[in-house]
């Protein structure tokens, strides 16, 4: 029985690797700019994903794809921070502006139809804030689930959510969008 469970777990993480290896390597390289570090990051990320396999109900689901993307991205940013103490990886424009999920304030204003104030507020959010918003507002995860995924406490996630909402309400009021 135990061996059977072990085989299922191995099969699942093997499937993740088979399916997403190239994307994980490319995303890691985009942030780390080093092939060896990128490979190390893929291994690190797989270990983390393996520890949270319960979140991977269906490998094809958009939630799983977002989960894998977030784990790989954050793991790479953490690795960069640890290797270069002086570099604030999470806030370094050279890195975050090249990420594939970047939406500029110009796009927010012109394509999404948000006011300039709202667009500016959203475009100034940190990478961690963006992760929280995706999990909370696109997938409806609880604060605890988000905290576990992002290595934060539930109250930390809640505090960030409230701050984002407050900043956004200020921008809306400033614009008179009531």
């Amino acid at each position, binding site marked *: 029985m135990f061996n059977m469970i072990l085989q299922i777990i191995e099969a699942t993480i093997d499937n993740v690797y088979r399916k997403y290896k*190239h994307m994980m390597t490319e995303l890691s390289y985009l942030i780390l700019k080093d092939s060896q570090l990128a490979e190390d990051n893929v291994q690190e990320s797989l270990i983390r994903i393996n520890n949270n396999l319960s979140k991977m109900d269906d490998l094809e689901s*958009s939630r799983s*794809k977002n989960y894998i993307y*977030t784990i790989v991205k954050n793991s790479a940013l953490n690795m960069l921070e640890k290797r270069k103490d002086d570099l*604030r990886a999470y806030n370094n424009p050279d890195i975050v502006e090249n990420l*594939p999920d970047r939406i500029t304030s110009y796009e927010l204003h012109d394509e999404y139809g948000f006011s300039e104030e709202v667009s500016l507020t959203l475009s100034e959010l940190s990478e961690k804030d963006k992760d929280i918003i995706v999990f909370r*507002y*696109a997938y409806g995860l609880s604060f605890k689930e988000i905290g576990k995924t992002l290595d*934060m406490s539930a109250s*930390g996630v809640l505090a960030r959510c409230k701050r984002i909402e407050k900043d956004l309400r200020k921008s809306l009021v400033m614009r008179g969008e009531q």
Partner: protein
Amino acid sequence: MMSVGNKANEVLKTYAGGLAQLRINYVNNYLLLTAGAEESFVPRKVHRLPVKKIVIIAAVLVMLFAMFIAVSSGAGLNLFKAKVTEESNHYDVELTEEIEGGSFLAIKYIPKGYECCDVERIGEVGLIVTYVNKDEEYLFIQESKDNGVYQSIDNETTTKHDGVAGDTEVQYYVDKVNNGIIALFVKNDIYFSINGHISEEEMNEIINNL
């Protein structure tokens, strides 16, 4: 007409949907490009310490821990045992003691002007009570029976302090820029985290009135 709160909610949903879709597109593009080029995952070998060394290290740690307990238990304090690692822009705080988990404690003191606006239960092991004042400043008090508690605290504007409130050892982080405090401590075998725009005196009052 839609309220500001609802409007903010709508904006965040739209933005979250856009971000999620960009991430999915990126992943899907790679799945299309690399279809058929699949490899199996071979985990790397991990270097392990010899068993003898592990036993010696464990024995030394147990002795140190026993000495620490013997010294500290005389003080009658609710100790706060945590490992704090300072990274470039945040502290990683990891609770290093086992929590047996007593009953959640009632919060008997709330700073002036605050009122309760939300109570979130996290299964049987967690509780987050949120208070808000008229300036929309929030105060979060979290109680947790969960072991392996981990907290990430920005250190760009905060400074770490160690103190004692009554019979409780408290580690707190003062954010002078945003005028806030994050306080961490263990009482009644429950891990507490207080996060809000409060003074050190108000923090002590909350801890002493649990």
